[in-house]
Structure formats: structure tokens, C-alpha cells
């Protein structure tokens, strides 16, 4: 009996994820994301084939250079690290835009009441939608980052697996920001507002991360504390991106744990509030 119930719940979750995927496909969000990723991959292919890139690599390989191989590696690693950061920002931005409408669309009157009439928990429903959204973006991230890794590796003959960390890290940050999109979607049913808030958090995170510099400029204790409180609350989009870049550069001191757990805590709290509101709301 328990096994049957578990299978039934799993079937429901799979159906919800598949439906979100189907909707993303039908609304051209899926194809739009993949189209832009393909365009970017094409641009990379083009950029790595132009003389500037080839010339730069050749210069590194000149015999008079003291440690030519080391320099090429360094140059390539720096390229990898900056590219990973670029893809992290690009991927997260695009994913936020693509996902913003998927929650409000399902809350339309006449659609949501039918969905809620089915024998499923509201929590399952919202989590199914969330996971479907995440899956769409995950596929795109794998395609984009793996594609560019293959191009860089083929071109430089240096295969840097750390570059692929950009996939889980970008996906993690998107998962956190998607919690905000879900929360705004549940409360206001507005895709535009979801995007605005998620992007605002990304920008705010960049600003707050400059704490060492800004705190020196602030003259009152309360404003310094306020800055730090905000810094700890807001998901660390900037910090995590920077840390990822450093890890790709073999920086063993890079602290990845703090931005991960603080951002995860923010995401869990946002999703928790969204679920709590969704469970009580009338549709």
C-alpha cells in the first residue's frame, strides 16, 4: 500500500515536471534559451579562430620566454576562469528571464482550481513546478557550459575540468533566485515583478560584496552594521561567482562554503514563505 502511494506520488511529480517542461517548450522559452546558448557557442568558436587569440597563444609559446608551458597554462586558466564567470552571469540572467512566467501562468483562475482539485498536496504541486523549471535551465546550462568547455579544450589542448564547476554553481545560484521568482509569483502573480526583484538582488549582491571598501567610507556604526546585515541576508551572487572564478584558477584559499550556505539559507527561507502562502491562498 505504501509502495503504491509512493509510486503514485512519484507519477504526480513526474507529470508536473513534464508539464512545466512542455509549457517551456511550447512558449518558446526552451528554444529561446537554447538558441541564445547556441549563438554564444558560435561566437566563442568564431572568437577562438581569429588571429588575436591564436597570436596571443603563440606569443606565450615563444622559446625566449622563461617558462613557456607554464605561461600558456596560466593564460588558458585565466581565460577559463573569466569565461566561467561570464557564463555564470549570462546563464543566470537568461534563466531568470525565461522562468519568470512559469509560475504566474499556472495560477490563472480556471487552471489552478482544476489542478488543486486533484489528490495532491499544494506543496507537491509547487515543488513539481519548481523542479520542472530547474530541469529546463539545467539542460541549457549543461549544453552551454559543456559546449564552450569542449571548444576551449579542443582549441588549446588544455582540458580544465574545474571549468565545469560553472554548471553546478550557476545552477545552484539560479535555484536560489528561482525561489524568489516563485515567492513573487505566488504573492503577486506577476512575471515582470519576479524578474525585477531577482535582477535587483543580483545587482544588490554585487554592491554589498564591496563591503571592505564601503565600510571604510561609512561614518556611523549603525550604517556599517546595516550594510553587513544586508550583506549576510542577500544571496551572494557576486561572491559565489568570484569564488568560482578563483577555484577555476586553482586558488585553494577560495571560500566557497560561506556564499553557498548563506545563499542556500536565503533560498530555503524564500521558498518556505512561498509554500506557506501558497498553502493558505484561495484561488
Amino acid at each position, binding site marked *: 500500500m505504501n509502495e503504491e502511494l509512493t509510486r503514485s506520488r512519484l*507519477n504526480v511529480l513526474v507529470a508536473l515536471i513534464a508539464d512545466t517542461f512542455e509549457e517551456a517548450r511550447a512558449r518558446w522559452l526552451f528554444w529561446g534559451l537554447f538558441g541564445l546558448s547556441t549563438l554564444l557557442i558560435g561566437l566563442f568558436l568564431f572568437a577562438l579562430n581569429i588571429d588575436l587569440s591564436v597570436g596571443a597563444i603563440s606569443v606565450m609559446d615563444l622559446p625566449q620566454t622563461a617558462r613557456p608551458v607554464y605561461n600558456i597554462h596560466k593564460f588558458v586558466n585565466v581565460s577559463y576562469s573569466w569565461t566561467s564567470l561570464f557564463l555564470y552571469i549570462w546563464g543566470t540572467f537568461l534563466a531568470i528571464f525565461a522562468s519568470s512566467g512559469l509560475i504566474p501562468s499556472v495560477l490563472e483562475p480556471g487552471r489552478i482550481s482544476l489542478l488543486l482539485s486533484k489528490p495532491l498536496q499544494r506543496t507537491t504541486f509547487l515543488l513539481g513546478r519548481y523542479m520542472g523549471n530547474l530541469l529546463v535551465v539545467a539542460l541549457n546550462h549543461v549544453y552551454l557550459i559543456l559546449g564552450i568547455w569542449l571548444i576551449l579544450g579542443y582549441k588549446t589542448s588544455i582540458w580544465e575540468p574545474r571549468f565545469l564547476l560553472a554548471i553546478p554553481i550557476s545552477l545552484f545560484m539560479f535555484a536560489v533566485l528561482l525561489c524568489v521568482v516563485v515567492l513573487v509569483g505566488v504573492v503577486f502573480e506577476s512575471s515582470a515583478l519576479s524578474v525585477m526583484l531577482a535582477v535587483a538582488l543580483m545587482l544588490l549582491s554585487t554592491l554589498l560584496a564591496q563591503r571592505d571598501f564601503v565600510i571604510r567610507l561609512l561614518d556611523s556604526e549603525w550604517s556599517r552594521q546595516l550594510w553587513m546585515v544586508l550583506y549576510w541576508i542577500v544571496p551572494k551572487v557576486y561572491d559565489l561567482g568570484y569564488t568560482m572564478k578563483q577555484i577555476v584558477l586553482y586558488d585553494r584559499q577560495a571560500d566557497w562554503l560561506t556564499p553557498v550556505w548563506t545563499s542556500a539559507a536565503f533560498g530555503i527561507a524564500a521558498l518556505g514563505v512561498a509554500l506557506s502562502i501558497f498553502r493558505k491562498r*484561495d484561488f
Partner: protein
Amino acid sequence: MTTDCAIEAAGLEKIYQPRFRNRQIRALSNVSLQVPAGVKFGLLGPNGAGKTTFVKILVSAVRPTAGTARLFGKHATEPEARRPVGYLPENHRFPTYLTANGMLDFYSALSGMEPRDRKRRIPELLDLVGLKTWGDARIKKFSKGMLQRLGLAQALIHKPKLLLLDEPTDGVDPVGRREIRDILDRLTGTGVTVFINSHLLSEVETFCEYVAILRKGELALQGKISSLVAGRGFQVACSPLPGPAMDRLREIAASVSVTEDGIEVQTESRERANAVIDVIRGAGGLIESVTATNSSLEDVFIRVTRSEKAA
């Protein structure tokens, strides 16, 4: 709590509190209603009477402010209570990116059906609602009548014991209405409880056995249609009565409604009319009039909805 009741609502109240506004909207007020399993039940009422809110509470899309709703004895908020329920909402919006097959597959999966059973049931249901050749067509191409029939297929696919239909023929032309009624007629004798929420009196009168009328969020009348529109009955009007006498009247009369001037009691026979008079006299009430009636459901509806207060 009884499981031979498909629907059991006790003291349901719903007050909507619009966001950023102080004004409250009372959609339902102390509605108690029992629908026996296996019957065809119609919920009538003018626009804004609270019919859709009532149905949405049954499917747990709306949470009541007070009171409880049970489906086959289980609290409506429990997901398991909704497993034997098929629902067709008013102004539904099915995902237009799906085909008819895809749509039925999705909703039947949510109802807990196994993939094997879904594959078998989908063509059966499309055939039942006359959309056999439309399975692979995207539903954005469907007319209103086709969408309603597809919606019915969606509600029936998991063989529900209770079918909740919110304005099932709204916006559908007469031919489409007839087709929907024909589909519903095939459910007769299958033991499925059909609960229709409508403002179309003729539809309810033709199809249903029992009816309840909501007026301004209050239950104004409930009874068997054959009794309410009995070829010849009697209406007894009297002065207001205390609670126990009202309860006794509800037991023996076809309907009891409270009007501006007092109470109107509808009975199906001369014997019942005399029993009603005995109760009124026994409770110290004053008889205002006793009238022989020959009413239609429309007469009953108009009389009840024009009254100011509900029973």
C-alpha cells in the same frame, strides 16, 4: 459524519478579504448541505450567490473561514478526499499547448492513474465525448463546445464517484448543451453522484433529482425537485416560529423558506399540509394562508430568490 453522503457541508462560511482593502466580502454564510451518494444534485442561485465559492471549497481551492466540508466522510482539505472527485471548473483554462491526448494524460496522471490505465482510458473517453478523431489536435483549436466535452472527459477519466460540474453548459450552444446532457445521461445508474452548479433552471430541472438554492451566500432552500414542483401541493404561510418548530417543519415539508413577513412552507400533499399546520399551531404560530400550488422550478426559484432572508 456519514460515508453514504457524497457531500456534507456543515456551517460553511467564507469571507473574502481583498488585498489592500478594508471591505470584506461575505460569499457564504452558515451553509449546511447534505448530498446523498448516487444522486443528481443541482445547486442553483443568481449570479454572486456563492455557488462557485461553495464548489471551490469542496475541491479545496478555497479555504472556508468557518465550518467544514466533507467528501464521502473525509475532510475536503485532505488530498485523499479528492481522489474520487471529477471536477469541471467554470471558465476553465486548459493548457493550450497540449493536445487532447496530452491534456487527458496530464490530468489523469495527477488523479493518480497508472500510465497503462491512462493509455487505455484516453481513447475510450475521447470516444465517449465525441472527440475520437481529435486526440492529436492541440486544444487551442477547439471550439467552446468541444472544450466543454473535453473538460468532461478530463473529469470522468479516473472513474470518479462524485462529479462536480460548475456551469457545464455556460457559453455552449443548444446543440452542444444537448451533447453534454447526453453524456451525463449515460452516467445514470452507474452510482456516480453528479453535482451541477448552474443558473440554468431548465437544465437542472431536466437532469437533477435534488436541488438547493443559494441566495446571497445563504442556503435558501433544499429539497427533492419532484416534491418542490409537485403537480399539486400546498403552500402554508405563517408567522415566524422558534427553532425546534422550524427543524420539525424541515423534516416533514418539501421546503421551508423565511420571507420578509414570516415563513413559507411547501408541502407535497394534503396530509403533509395538515401536519405542517399542526406543528405551526403547536408552536404558537399564526397561519397567514394556505394555498394550493402547481409550481415549476422557476416559480420556486423566483419565489425563493426574491425573499430577503434565508431559511
